[in-house]
């Protein structure tokens, strides 16, 4: 039962005042906060690792790799690029507007709300926070209540390391989220599922608040026949990692299902089994290298996916689960029914369906017929297939011969399209996400064209027509009375 602690008017008032005072706009403040984030992760690493292990059973190497290391990398990148991002950019001007100049000036939006998700509680909180701070905003973070230890560590560490007057954490569940959304923010950044995404956007609409929705989808991996054994080995490792290695499959960009040719299917299953054993041993739960399922609700949901008729019979590996420890072992299914829940809903767990097709090119049609996912993966050396996948499927991003790693690329925008959301971040896109790019045009008094002004007559019209075409020769002729029509 969550304690309702008022309507947050006090907190929001303080944030607004602090923002209006201009403090968060100073480069020095932004820098100090980004440094604060680096110190936070350096000094409280063990608290963070403990919390991730407690809530999600993450191995400390996985936790470091996915949540600590990546955030520190992003904060360092932001520090290194802050000056560049904050500076105005000159805009090219047409000659007709001489003498004038224009530039694009980035400015913070104001007070922003970040709602993060339970599966990467530190990563998905801090990546947007880094963008919001770099852009000069005041921030409220609402972490997910489904990873409570992490939520608590987030609140404590942010309080200890960052400027509390401008960056606040509000803990709690849906009721708290609802209360927050009754207030006006200058931006709302939401990571989570589409149902709550809709609620968030509807609430934001009342204030015309722009939103970014980072959702998910069923991210397919097209696995082509690969001849080289070296390549096959790497591909298997990456596929397994892409499915089971990041929060046990509970990741928005985890591989959801595989598409492959009928002939390759049995080899694929064999190889996957071999590498699953290599990665996780004979008893995956004992390896402590796969995250657990976050709670009983999701555990039951995943079990129900497996229990459906047409699905149960398609399990070719794994399938065992342990309710006490909220653990489901890596499970492979071969050709479950296409209209079963496991093939129509986002799985978000360690269950890997493999769908077989006649030809690998059919995978493109298969993907197109379904909602646009956050990521599409292709494991292939066939350049034509790659081109076809890029031009004929649509997704947030597309990665070849690897999975999930696009998350770590600072130069690539990270975000969805269609059902997987809209808006993007990471690197400079995080900065842009929380900025308004203001167009500023400067004119002088030196040259003023009389034909801009009424009363109108035909001569002025002709002058304007030629001026707008940048046809200065004609303009001069008309002015001199030597020509009457532009």
């Amino acid at each position, binding site marked *: 039962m969550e304690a309702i602690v008022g309507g947050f008017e006090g907190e929001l008032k303080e944030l607004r005042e602090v923002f209006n005072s201009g403090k968060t706009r100073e480069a020095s403040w932004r820098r100090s906060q980004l440094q604060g984030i680096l110190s936070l992760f350096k000094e409280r690493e063990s608290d963070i690792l403990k919390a991730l292990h407690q809530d999600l059973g993450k191995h400390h*190497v996985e936790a*470091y790799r996915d949540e600590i*290391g*990546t955030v520190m990398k992003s904060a360092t990148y932001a520090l290194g690029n802050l000056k560049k991002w904050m500076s105005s950019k000159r*805009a090219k*001007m*047409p000659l007709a507007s001489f003498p*004038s100049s*224009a530039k694009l000036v980035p400015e913070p*939006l104001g007070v922003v709300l970040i709602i993060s998700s339970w599966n990467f509680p530190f990563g998905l909180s801090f990546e947007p926070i880094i963008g919001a701070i770099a852009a000069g905003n005041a921030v409220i973070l609402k972490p997910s209540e489904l990873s409570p230890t992490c939520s608590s560590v987030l609140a404590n560490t942010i309080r200890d390391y960052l400027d509390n007057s401008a960056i606040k954490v509000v803990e709690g569940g849906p009721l708290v989220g609802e209360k927050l959304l009754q207030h006006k923010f*200058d931006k709302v950044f939401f990571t989570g599922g589409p149902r709550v*995404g*809709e609620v968030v956007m*509807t609430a*934001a*609409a009342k204030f*015309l608040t722009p939103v970014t929705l980072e959702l998910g989808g069923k991210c397919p991996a097209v696995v082509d026949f690969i001849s*080289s054994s070296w*390549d096959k080995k790497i591909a298997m490792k*990456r596929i397994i*990692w892409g499915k089971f*290695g990041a929060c046990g499959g509970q990741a928005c960009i985890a591989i959801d299902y595989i598409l492959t040719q009928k002939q390759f299917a049995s080899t694929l299953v064999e190889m996957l089994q071999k590498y699953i054993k290599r*990665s*996780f041993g004979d008893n995956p739960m004992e390896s402590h*290298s*796969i995250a657990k399922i976050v709670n009983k609700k999701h555990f039951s949901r995943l079990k129900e996916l497996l229990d459906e008729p047409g699905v149960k019979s398609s399990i070719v590996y794994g399938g065992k689960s342990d309710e006490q420890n909220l653990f489901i072992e890596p499970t492979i299914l071969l050709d479950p029914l296409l209209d079963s829940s496991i093939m129509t809903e986002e799985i978000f767990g360690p269950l890997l369906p493999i769908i077989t097709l006649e030809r690998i090119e059919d995978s493109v049609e298969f993907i*197109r017929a379904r909602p646009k996912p956050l990521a599409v993966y292709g494991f292939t050396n066939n350049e034509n297939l790659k081109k076809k996948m*890029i031009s004929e499927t649509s997704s*947030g*991003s*597309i*990665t*070849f*011969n*690897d999975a999930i*790693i*696009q998350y*770590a*690329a*600072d*130069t690539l*925008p990270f975000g969805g399209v*269609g*059902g997987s959301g809209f808006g993007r971040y990471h690197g400079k896109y995080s900065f842009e996400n929380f900025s308004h790019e*203001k*167009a*500023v*045009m*400067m*004119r*002088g*008094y030196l040259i*003023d064209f009389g034909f*801009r*002004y*009424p009363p*109108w007559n035909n001569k002025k*019209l002709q002058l*304007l*027509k030629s001026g707008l075409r940048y046809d200065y020769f004609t303009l001069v002729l008309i002015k001199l009375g030597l020509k009457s029509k532009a």
Partner: protein
Amino acid sequence: MIKFYRRYPSITHRQHRSFSDLSSNSRFHLPIDIDYTMASEEQAKNSTAPATFDAEAADCLMKELRSTFLDGKTKSYEWRSSQLKSLLKMLEDSDKQICDALFSDLSKPEMEAYIHEIAMIKSSCKLALKKLKDWMKPEKTKTNLGTFPSSAEIVPEPLGVVLIISAWNYPLLLSVDPVIGAIAAGNAVVLKPSELAPAMSSLLAKLLGKYLDSSAIKVVEGAVPETSALLEQKWDKIFYTGNGRVARVVMAAAANNLTPVVLELGGKSPVLVDSNIDLTVTARRILSGKWGCNNGQACVAPDYIITTKQYAPVLIDSLKHNLVKFFGEDPMNSPDLSRVGHSRHFARLKKLLDDDKISGKIIHGGQTDKSNLKIAPTIVLDAPEDSLIMSEEIFGPLLPIVTVEKIEDGIEFINSRPKPLAAYLFTNTKQLKEEFVSNISAGGVVINDVTLHLMVDTLPFGGVGESGTGAYHGKFSFDAFSHKKAVLYRGFFGDAPARYPPYTPGKLRLLKALLDGSLFGIIRALFGFS
């Protein structure tokens, strides 16, 4: 354009219902008390609007467009470029018809029609044609150590089927400009022009139907019920130009389908006028931006002026003097002024003028002519902050002047109000310019002129806060209707086993170094140190 005939003769009773009944059948209650009634009964009778475009018709429309889009036709360079070429030809062939429609709907002078609508849209179309290949090209990007070795690019792709809802004050420009962006980006498009500019709405339906590919680009005419039916569909993007009230309904409708939106709204665009200026040029520019832009009915028209108490009389004198030069002694009969758009709008403006709070403060103009929908250029001095004229976007030929003690107080005044679409400053003082630019948040800012930034296609045009979200013009139009897909290419060579289970301390060391981006750290880790 699809003609929406009555499909089921038994539903004739629909035609006898009022707008409010129809709108209450839809989930989205578009406000009907503002901006949504027909300009006049006469126009309603003569309207060529087809029979009710209902939910079923909208379903049918969407099905056809989705199928066209999925076939891939709109994605090719050839299709996009051919559509843009036809659009340009359409504009070139139809100068006269367009001017006539604009005159019929708004009494827009030919000059304004030409400069602000026709010339701008032609220029936008030509730019898109010229730059299309460039815009469609993938953008190669660097990759960092975290994903080494890899290569990456960002590939623009169309969103799918998009809805464009435009406004009545610049009915050609605000309809066709986003359509240009949508076509250039490779989408299928539905345009819903404003019914408050019925001649243009009808002309657009006719011309776009004739010149463009109607299997992919459609015009749906109508008002609240038609818009509601459209908003129930699942679009890949909705581009709306209009006011904040309806924008909230549009965004809430979009939320049901997680559809991203661009909202081009308005606000009270202030003009801060310093004393250190060229007075005549300043006055002329303000006047042309206010009364020369559809008689103040433009989202970026100067809404009100702020100047010092000391300078106000000087400025007012020059404004009055130049008003006469522009529009003569009898501006009500000047052919160079647009009329007020429609009768509801006239009533709203009259209400602003009749507000008790500003009685005695009208220092110029104030005359109104209801039958011809004309209001004279009017200046109001020091209207109280809680008067109607100072609380809502005016969108008409009334110009309040607010006086302050020092010019810097003007900046505070502006900042205490919702963020406008544009903010203007007239001064030769460098420091004031710098303060204004860094402290005023608005969609766009112009120093020493007004509204011109719309004509520069290298500048994004859009609002912030209450004045909207998203931007367009030039490449920004293409971007507004595209998804920029990140593409990452990895090879199988150069794999870092560090990231895979089973996890070991050695792997952790290597990972730390990789994520730090430190080459030295990586070498050390590989050799077992650190």
